């Protein structure tokens, strides 16, 4: 008997050793280009971002044969990457040269003395051509620490096939009230919900809150929690009402980035979704069956004549102070994200609305690419149409705790459990203070 146990334990030990050996070296690594350039390490949480930078590294190497770079890009899961980066910067070792930091997490990196390189010398010469509000969200004490990919204008994506079945013309949906009425028609004609709302992320609620006129959203313009104001209560009550009527359903999997949702939407599960412009890439890559069926329109307004969009989300690429090649990293970052060429590539490659407003009407943005193939040729007209209606957001150190409480509690209690929005928001506001 004893021999059996000994044998069993031996096998276990061997197996666990084998497993441990397999588990090393997580994450996906890819070299931007072959060759002998300076190695720059880059961390991101988004595979599309990684592909973009690898593409830009190849172009950079063609144009700068004397300053070649080898981009070592790693894609990690969202939370893992931010936590790893925080710990690496706090401890002062192990951080990459360049990293993507998502807007919700960015304030964590600005606490104390930021361990990031100020990018003023590459940003300031181009400031007149850039959408400045998109740089301010990554700034502290007059220093710019991150450069975004996009403006992130939120729009609404309609499934034209379903709208046609219900006889709804998307151009006639001007306000959220129109949207609810049209939604009812769609539900009656097709048996399918008009839209989905997120229960575990901010993309359904934040654009609706931020598009309200004025500088207040989840926080007031001067940075105080603003949850009990009408700006926040009204959209949540609106969404709750849509859910009660069946016009909206909770997004399968909890949010618009869940595998369950992609499958559901790809099968024509709902007639619309409001998300920022950058969501186009998720359609082309994860919902291929909707090709040619999706039309992009400005979001409905709360009242006629009020703003129809808000700059949403974002990812700032940062350079760490521990990088040994800060100047090269800066030059590459400026090339990839601030140059005219880089901004045109951002559009062509990622389908993002680029940061430089002076390229928006350039002919390159009219050329066919995988996005025009999917959505049609007039994508950019929507952006130009809402150009002056893109509301900004307040982002500061309070943003991570606020979005955390929304993602774990507020949205669940109001939209899933059907609790009274005013009561929930009052309690949450009190807890935050």
């Amino acid at each position, binding site marked *: 008997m004893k021999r059996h146990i000994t044998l*069993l334990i031996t096998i276990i030990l061997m197996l666990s050793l084998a497993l441990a050996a397999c588990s090393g070296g997580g994450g996906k690594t890819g070299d931007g280009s072959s060759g002998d350039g300076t190695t720059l390490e880059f961390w991101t949480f988004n595979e599309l971002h990684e592909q973009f930078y690898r593409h830009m590294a190849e172009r950079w190497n063609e144009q700068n044969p004397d300053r070649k770079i080898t981009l070592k890009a790693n894609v990690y899961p969202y939370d893992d990457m931010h936590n790893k980066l925080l710990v690496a910067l*706090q401890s002062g070792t192990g951080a990459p040269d360049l990293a993507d930091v998502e807007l919700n997490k960015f304030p964590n990196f600005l606490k104390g003395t930021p361990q990031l390189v100020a990018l003023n010398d590459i940003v300031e010469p181009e400031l007149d051509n850039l959408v400045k509000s998109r740089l301010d969200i990554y700034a502290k004490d007059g220093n710019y620490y991150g450069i975004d990919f996009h403006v992130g204008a939120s729009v609404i994506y309609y499934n034209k096939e379903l709208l046609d079945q219900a006889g709804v013309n998307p151009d006639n949906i001007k306000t959220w009230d129109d949207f609810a009425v049209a939604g009812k028609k769609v539900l009656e004609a097709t048996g399918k919900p008009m839209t989905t709302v997120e229960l575990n992320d901010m993309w359904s609620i934040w654009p609706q809150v931020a598009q309200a006129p004025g500088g207040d959203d989840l926080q007031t313009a001067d940075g105080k929690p603003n949850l009990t104001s009408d700006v926040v209560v009204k959209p949540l009550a609106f969404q709750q009402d849509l859910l009660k009527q069946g016009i909206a359903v909770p997004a399968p999997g909890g949010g618009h980035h869940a595998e369950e949702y992609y499958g559901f939407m790809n099968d024509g599960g709902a007639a619309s979704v409001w998300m920022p412009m950058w969501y186009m890439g998720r359609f082309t890559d994860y919902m291929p069956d909707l090709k040619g069926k999706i039309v992009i329109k400005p979001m409905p307004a709360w009242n006629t004549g009020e703003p129809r969009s808000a700059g949403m989300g974002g990812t700032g690429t940062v350079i760490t102070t521990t990088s040994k090649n800060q100047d090269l990293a800066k030059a590459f970052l400026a090339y990839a994200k601030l140059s005219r060429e880089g901004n045109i590539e951002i559009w062509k490659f990622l389908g993002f609305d680029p940061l430089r407003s002076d390229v928006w009407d350039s002919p390159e943005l009219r050329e066919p690419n995988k996005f025009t193939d999917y959505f049609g040729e007039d994508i950019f007209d929507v952006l130009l149409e809402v150009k002056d209606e893109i509301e900004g957001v307040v982002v500061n150190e309070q943003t991570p*705790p606020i979005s955390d409480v929304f*993602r774990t509690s507020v949205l669940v209690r109001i939209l899933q459990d059907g609790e009274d929005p005013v009561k929930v928001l009052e309690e949450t506001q009190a807890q935050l203070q």
Partner: protein
Amino acid sequence: MTHPVPSTERQTAVRYSPLRRLAYSKTAAPWLFVLPFILSFALFFAYPVLSAVNMSFQEVLPGQVRYIGLENYRDLWNPTFRKALMNSTEYTVFTLLVLIPLPLVLAVFLNSKLMVLRNFFRSTLFIPALTSVVVAGTVFRLAFGELEGSLMNTFVTALGFEPQKWLRHEGLAMFTLIVLATWRWMGINILYFLAGLQNIPRELYESAEIDGATAWDRFIRITLPLLKPITIYVLTISIYGGYAMFTESYMLWAGNRSPNDIGLTIVGYLYRNGLEQNNLGLGSAVGIALLIITFTVTMIQLKLTGMFRRED
């Protein structure tokens, strides 16, 4: 054999090399032999714990660290922490209720000569313990998915129930966590109990049988009392394991965000504050609180089970 006595005196007079003298010295040698343990303990356990105690009184920001007294501990007593504490306690209690009796009974079966396919069951019950929690958690997340086609929903609809949103409701979420824990830790606990059972002398059972004791009597009067030391050990590590649970919850909800915090554990709360919100001071305070809680609970448990009584 030659008589060694006369030569011994001469040998002690010989001078050994310093290393050998150290190895033979009655005061230094024991220290030398435990040195690897002391070093690794100091480096990987004592230092982090002391440093966490220190950090729990600080505000830790990149490049700016200052002492703020008890403020972290004052911030700690909030509804979210209480929720995490409740969840962890509930989880610990349920895992104890399942993971002590069930493996004990199974181990008795697996130890019995009458059991068919003993070795087959021994290995199959143990295999889950070899899987990575990350992989197992992901598989469980999909199996307990909210879509109608998920594994668990296929089961319950076949039994005539409505499909459930397993990971979105409090009771069901805790159930899922317990199922995952049971699946994963059952084999380990069976192994402990099996080892304990092998140490019970066969003669006790034989003489009990001669005295006319039934199988049930033998289980209650011989097996259970003699397994007590093992049971106490399993209880102790289970209490610690229950309170320290994090990865299972993290993987089931693909991140640390469960709806209404139904899956938030104390370590999850530590992770959220310390890492996700970059507040390592508060995170350390949560860690120290966890240490105090598990220490207290374990001490009470050991006291009640009589571990501190002198053995007769």
